[in-house]
């Protein structure tokens, strides 16, 4: 059993490095470039009840130290995902774990997607993407504790599988939302999703992004992601996926020391598909240098001078 191996949610994870939702498609698209089974696993592109057309272009653009995107959750929908995408994952991801990123407009819709997938094979659990508008409340599920609580309970009621809630970064106190998820029965958290942003083409006096606003990701958000992960880890006992701007082993280790059990790499994959595996090996090297035998000894091992 390797240094990086850990057991979570009754499963064995031989690597803490995952590919983030929306940056690795449904796995198949990157399989020629990335040896998925050498990684901890992947989180799929968002899956909704019905197919979604997505937003008009431009959907992506570079920003200082990162990028902005507004894909609009374009996806094939529950049925085609289950019938066309999941089989490939079941056959090919023998060692890597799969989490399905789920979106919906109402708690019922989230529940329906999960219910429609639950007895299929080929994945371990769900990552609930609450950074999307709640048709009922208008606000994002991820910024409204009541809506979030109701959503998590609803989904919890429909599955026994590991249920991860992916939190929204633009809240004053993420600990509140972390606790709401824990109390509502979530098995884990993902921190964090993209930051809302906007880019303007000053020559044309128009937004660069077809959807006007988008989500900012990449190295630019690393220090925010590390803090939010640390705050979430302080608030609950759930395992956490650390996400945001990771492009090196030392970035990943910042999240792990802050309290993340696993990490996800997104934007950096576009720059270099090798980055995920490089990070895996970089963490191994770090552990050898510092002679740490178990990854779990590093999780949350941040020392705060004066706070013993």
């Amino acid at each position: 059993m390797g240094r990086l191996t850990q057991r979570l949610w009754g499963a064995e994870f031989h690597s803490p490095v995952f590919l983030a939702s929306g940056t690795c498609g449904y796995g198949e698209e990157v399989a020629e470039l990335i040896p998925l089974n050498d990684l901890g696993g992947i989180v799929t592109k968002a899956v909704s009840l019905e197919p979604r057309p997505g937003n008009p272009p431009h959907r992506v653009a570079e920003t200082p130290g990162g990028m902005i995107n507004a894909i609009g959750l374009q996806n094939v929908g529950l049925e085609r995902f289950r019938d066309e995408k999941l089989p490939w994952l079941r056959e090919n991801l023998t060692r890597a774990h799969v989490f399905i990123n789920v979106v919906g407009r109402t708690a019922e819709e989230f529940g329906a997607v999960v219910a429609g997938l639950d007895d299929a094979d080929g994945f371990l659990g769900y990552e609930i993407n609450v950074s999307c508008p709640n048709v009922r409340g208008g606000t994002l599920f991820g910024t409204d504790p009541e809506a979030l609580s109701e959503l998590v309970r609803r989904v919890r009621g429909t599955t026994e599988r590991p249920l991860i809630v992916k939190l929204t970064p633009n809240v004053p106190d993420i600990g509140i939302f972390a606790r709401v998820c824990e109390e509502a029965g979530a098995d884990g958290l993902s921190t964090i999703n993209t930051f809302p942003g906007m880019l303007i083409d000053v020559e044309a006096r128009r937004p660069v992004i077809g959807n006007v606003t988008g989500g900012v990701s990449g190295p630019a958000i690393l220090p925010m992601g590390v803090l939010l992960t640390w705050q979430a880890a302080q608030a609950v006992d759930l395992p956490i996926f650390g996400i945001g701007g990771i492009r090196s082993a030392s970035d990943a280790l910042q999240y792990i020391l802050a309290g993340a059990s696993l990490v996800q790499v997104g934007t950096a994959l576009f720059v270099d598909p090798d980055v995920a595996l490089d990070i895996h090996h970089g963490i191994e090297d770090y552990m050898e240098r510092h002679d740490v035998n178990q990854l779990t000894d590093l999780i949350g091992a941040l020392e705060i001078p004066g706070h013993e």
Partner: protein
Amino acid sequence: MSAPCRLLARVTSNRRTAADTFWLELDAPAIAATAEPGQFVMLGLGLDDVAAPFLPRPFSVGWRDEAGRIGLLIRQFGPGTHRLASLSPGDEALLLGPLGRGFRWEQDQPLVCVAGGVGLAPFLFLAPEARRSGSKVSILYGEQTADRVFDPYLIEELTGVRPDVYTDDGTAGKAGRVVDAVDRTAGSNLYGCGPTPMLRALERRAREANLPLQVSVEEHMGCGIGTCQGCVVRSSSGEWIKSCTDGPVFDREELAWAD
């Protein structure tokens, strides 16, 4: 279409070819061996720093040789291409490719390549390949002004075709818009690459003259390999389709041209 590969490529040369334009050659055997005309590469500088281009940038393969080198014709547009312009021989860059669906052609059909600006790039690769397969090829090449024109003799050297050059202001070649020259090409297959407004005009011409047209489109890209869904264009059936994997080359009938 063969599997794309990721490789750290050494720059073998970088020459300025016109105002704001340079010709970049890289040592990329795996890509040179399998690239087809119309396919592109994602060119980036890796993850060591976050300066633009942080995201890799898409460029059409403009040339390749048996020694395993590829050539890119790049125009300085914004910060990313500006920094790429300073690459010197020996520098390393990160390449992903060959990517996308290239041009299709039949031996017996004459090809008319309509290039706007650096839209010339893919035709520098298509023309010789098509001619090798026995097709007749002509190149209509438009630029705004003379100082931006890629040396016609060099084009002839690379492709075996002497291009008809057009400039908006007539400072080089004939005066006028390259699309207007299409009238005199009845009976042949059109291939277009250039700014979107030019492609729109070209499509209108092709539709009116009822000529087949393949265009290479440009849209912002994230991944270049079909995962991010960032690069969509509107299909004739109204869906958003990926220009990086379904394209970048499309038959005019595949796309929605309404603006």
